[in-house]
C-alpha cells in the first residue's frame, strides 16, 4: 500500500511540474514583448528590412497613453523604425522615472510630461534639444525649455455641473470660483484632492492663480461651504457626482473640459464645464538625453504632431490636439468648448512651491 502511495505521490508532482513547465514555456515566450514579439506591419517584407535599418525606437509614457494600432503601423512603415511603447504609472511617476534615470535613460523619447511636472526632468537634464517639422502654436510652449519639450495635447481641468440636476431643482448653476463658496451651493460640490490626483492638483492651481496668497482663505470658505474632498477623479465622478454615480448626491464636480461630451443624451449634454474655472494641462513630448536612437526619437516626436495622430488624440486619450488643423469629434465640437483664457501658473513657480503648497493645503483640508 505504502509503495503505491509513494509512487502516486512521486508521479503526480512530476506530471504537474512538467505541465507547469509546459504552460510556462508558452507564457514566457507568448507573454514576451520587445522587438521580437512586436507584430510586423502589414507589408512585412519591405518594412521588416527597413526596421532592421532604422532599428527600434522606445517611447516611455504614462498608462493613459494610447494610439490606434493602425497609426502605429503606418508610422513604422513610413519611417522604417519599430515602435516600442513602455507605458506605466501616472504623469508624476513618469516625471520621477525620467529624473532618476537622466544619466542612463529608460527610452529614446518620452511623452506625457505635463506643465505641472515639466521643470523636474528638465532640471535634471533628462531631455535633449529637439527640432520638429511642424510648429505648434505659441500659446502651448513652455516659458523655459521649449527647445526640449514639444506640446502635443491639452486638457483643461474645469468645474463641471450637472445641468439637468440644477434644472430639476430650479436652481441657477454656479459660474465662477467665487460662486462656489456661495451658501446657495452648500454641500453640492466634490473634488479630488490636490495631493493625490492630477486633476485635483490642477483645480488647486486654478485657485492659486485666481487668489494668489489668499488661496488658503478661499479653501477655508470652500470647506466651510461643505465641499467634499476625495482621493481620485474616479471617486469624485463615479462616487459622488449626480451625473456619474447611481446614487451620487453632488451636482458639482472637478473634471475636464471634454467631460460634457460624454454625457450626451437626446441631442444635448446633461452636464457643462464652467469655462471660467479652468486650469490647462498641456502634455509634452521630447527626445531623451543620451538616447540610443535619437534620430528615431525625433521622428517619433514629429509624428506626434502629424495630422493623423493629432486627430486621433480626442478619441484615444480624451484630450484636445494642440495643432489647429486637427479634426475634433462632432460631440466634442458641439458639447465640449475649450476655455479661452484658463488660469495659469508657471512650471517654475509650481516646482518651487509644490511641497509647501501641498503641505499647507493638506493642513487646511484636514482641519
Amino acid at each position, binding site marked *: 500500500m505504502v509503495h*503505491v*502511495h509513494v509512487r*502516486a*505521490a512521486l508521479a*503526480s*508532482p512530476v506530471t*504537474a511540474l512538467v505541465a*507547469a*513547465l509546459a504552460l*510556462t514555456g508558452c*507564457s*514566457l515566450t507568448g*507573454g*514576451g*514583448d*520587445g522587438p521580437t514579439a*512586436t507584430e510586423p506591419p502589414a507589408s512585412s517584407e519591405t518594412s521588416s528590412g527597413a526596421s532592421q535599418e532604422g532599428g527600434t525606437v522606445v517611447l516611455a509614457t504614462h*498608462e*493613459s*497613453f*494610447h494610439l490606434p494600432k493602425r497609426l502605429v503601423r503606418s508610422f513604422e512603415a513610413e519611417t522604417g523604425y519599430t515602435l*516600442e*511603447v513602455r507605458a*506605466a*504609472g501616472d504623469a*508624476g511617476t513618469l*516625471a*520621477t*522615472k525620467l529624473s*532618476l*534615470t537622466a544619466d542612463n535613460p529608460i527610452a529614446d523619447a518620452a511623452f506625457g510630461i505635463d506643465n505641472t511636472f515639466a521643470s*523636474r526632468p528638465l532640471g535634471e537634464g533628462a531631455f535633449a534639444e529637439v527640432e520638429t517639422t511642424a510648429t505648434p502654436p505659441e500659446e502651448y510652449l513652455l516659458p523655459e525649455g521649449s527647445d526640449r519639450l514639444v506640446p502635443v495635447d491639452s486638457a483643461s481641468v474645469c468645474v463641471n455641473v450637472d445641468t439637468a440636476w440644477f434644472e430639476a431643482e430650479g436652481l441657477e448653476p454656479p459660474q465662477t470660483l467665487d460662486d462656489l463658496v456661495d451658501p446657495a451651493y452648500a454641500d453640492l460640490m466634490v473634488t479630488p484632492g490636490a*495631493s*493625490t490626483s492630477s486633476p485635483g492638483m490642477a483645480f488647486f492651481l486654478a485657485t492659486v492663480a485666481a487668489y494668489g496668497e489668499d488661496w488658503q482663505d478661499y479653501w477655508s470658505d470652500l470647506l466651510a461651504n461643505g465641499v*467634499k*474632498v*476625495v*482621493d*481620485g*477623479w*474616479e*471617486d469624485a*465622478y*463615479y*462616487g*459622488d457626482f449626480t451625473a*456619474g*454615480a*447611481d*446614487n451620487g448626491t*453632488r451636482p458639482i464636480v472637478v473634471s*475636464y473640459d471634454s467631460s460634457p461630451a*460624454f*454625457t450626451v443624451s437626446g441631442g444635448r449634454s446633461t452636464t457643462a464645464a464652467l469655462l471660467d474655472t479652468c486650469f490647462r494641462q498641456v502634455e509634452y513630448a521630447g527626445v531623451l538625453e543620451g538616447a540610443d536612437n535619437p534620430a528615431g526619437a525625433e521622428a517619433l516626436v514629429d509624428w506626434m504632431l502629424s495630422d493623423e495622430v493629432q486627430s486621433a488624440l480626442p*478619441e484615444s486619450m*480624451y484630450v484636445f490636439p494642440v495643432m489647429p488643423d486637427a479634426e475634433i469629434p462632432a460631440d466634442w465640437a458641439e458639447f465640449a468648448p475649450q476655455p479661452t483664457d484658463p488660469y495659469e501658473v508657471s512650471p517654475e513657480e509650481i516646482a518651487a512651491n*509644490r*511641497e509647501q503648497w*501641498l*503641505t499647507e493645503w493638506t493642513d487646511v483640508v484636514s482641519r
Partner: protein
Amino acid sequence: MSPGARGRVHRPPGRHGRARHGRAGRRVAGLLLLAAGPVLVLGVLFVLPVTGMIAEGFWVDGRFAPGAVLEVLSRPRVHRVAWFTVWTSGVATLLAVVLGLPAAYALHRLALPGRSAVRAALLVPFVLPTVVVGVAFRQLLGEGGPLGFLGLDGTPVAILCGLVFFNVAVVVRTVGVAWESLDSRPGQAAAALGASPWQVLRTVTLPALRPAIVGAASIVFLFCATAFGIVLTLGGVRYATVETEIYLLTTTIFDLQAAAALSVLQIVVVLVLLAVAARLRATPDPTAQRVVAPARVVRRSDAPVVLATVLVLAAMLLPILTLVLGSLSVGDGWGLDNYRALTTAGDDQALLVPVTTALATSLRTAVDATWMALLVGVTVSVLVTRRSHSAAERRLRSGLDGFFMLPLGVSAVTLGFGFLITLDEPPLDLRDSPLLVPMAQALVALPLVVRTLTPVLGGVDDRQRQAAASLGASAWRTFVTVDLPVAWKPMLAAGGFAFAASLGEFGATSFLARDTSPTLPVVIFRLIGHPGEMNYGMALAASVVLATVTALVMLAVERLRVPGVGAF
C-alpha cells in the same frame, strides 16, 4: 520553524562528538548551498533595488549626508502618519483574525454543502482592483448609498472595513489549510477526558494552530501596512499612511530624503514585527500531523460557528453584489450590454484590447509568477522547517524565514523606482525584461506560499524523516515520501493563492507593465479613469469577469487530487 522546541525533542547525548561535529558542519554548508538560490534571487530583485533607492536619499550630490533624512524622522507629521499606519493595520489584523477563524474552521473542517465553491469565492476580493472595490464601497457607504446613514464615508472605520474585506481570505486560507491537516486525536482525547469544547479549543487546538494564525496575522498586518489605494479611496485625502506618504514624497514632491527616511522607518517596523512573529510562531509542542482529518458532518453544536461564517460571508458579499448589479445596469434598465462591449476593442471606447486578450495576458503572467513563487517558496519552506542541530543553524533558518517576508512590508514605490536605477547595467539589465512583471508579482506572492506551507511542513514529526533517512532514503526521497503527502494539498492551495495574488496585483504591474500587453486590472483602471456611463459599466463588468475566472481557477485547483494521498 519552531526550532526551539524541536531542538529539545529527544536528542540523545552524542557519544561520537567529533563525527557529529563534522556532520553539523556539512549540514550548515548544505543548508547554505540550498539557501543560496532563493537568497540570490531576493538579493537582486529586492535588497539591491531598495537599498539603491534609499541611498538616493542619503547621498546628496555624491556626498553622504544622512542629516536631512534624520531630520525628516523628527517631523510631527511623520509621527502621525506612522502611528496611523500602525494602529489601523493592527486593528484590521485583529478583526481579520477574529472574523476569519470561525470561517476557517467551518470551511475546512465541516462538511458544509458547497464549501469548496465558497472557499474559491473567498479569494475573489484578492483579485479585485482596489479602485473598483473602493468605488463599490463608496456606493454603499456614501452619502446617497444604502448604508449612508452610518456616516462612515471618509472615516477610519471605512478604511478598516476595506482592509478587512481584502484580508479575511488570507486568514481563512492559511489557517484553514493548517486546520485541515491537524491531527484531531489529541482534541478527541482531551474531550474524552472531560474537557469542554471551549477547553479543547483553548488548550489543544489553538496552540497547535498558533504558527498558522501568527503567520496569517503577520501577512495581513504587512498587507494592511502597505495598503495604498484602499486607504486613499475610503479615507479620502485626510488620512495618510507610510505607504501613501512615500508615494506622495517620491512622485509628486520628489523629496527623496524624506521618502528614504520613511522607507527606513518602514523597514525597521517590519523587522521588529517579524522578530516578534517568529517568537510567537514557535510551537510549544509540535505534534505529528500526518493524519488528514476527514470533514465532519455538521452538528447542531456547530450552529454558532456556521452562523458567524455566514455573517462574515454576507458582509463580504455586499460590496461584490453592488459591483455585479452595477455591471448589469444599463441606462434605466438591466442588460448584458456592458459585457458585450468587452468583446471588441471598439473604435470610440477606452478599451485598449478585447477583454479576452487582456485576460489571457493576465493569466499568462500569473502562471509565470506562480511557478516562480512556488519554486522559491517550497525551497524556502523546506529550508526553514527542517530540524536544526545547533543554535547557529536555528538562527540561520529563522533569519531566512523573516528575510523572505520582507517584500510584503516594504513600499512598492521604493522597490519600483529602485528597479529602474539599480538593475540598469549588464549583467543585471533587467528593467526592460518582460519577466520583470511576473518576478515582481512572485515577490508579493512568495510570503503567501511560505506562510501556507511552513505550518504544515513544520508539523511533520521529524522522526519520520529520521526513520526514512536511516532506511537509506536520500534527502529528495525523504521529501517525497514524508513531506509531500502532507504538503501536497497545501502546496496546491499555496499555488492557487499565489495565482490569485498575481492576477489581482496592480501596483507593480501598473508601474512596470507595457502598453502592448496590458493586464486585465490595468484595462479596468483605464476604463474607470474616464467619464461615460458605458466606461464605468464596462469597468465593473471586466471586474466581474476577472473575479469569476479567478473563482473558477481556484475551484479547479481545489479539485486536483493526488490519488491515495491527501484524499478524503
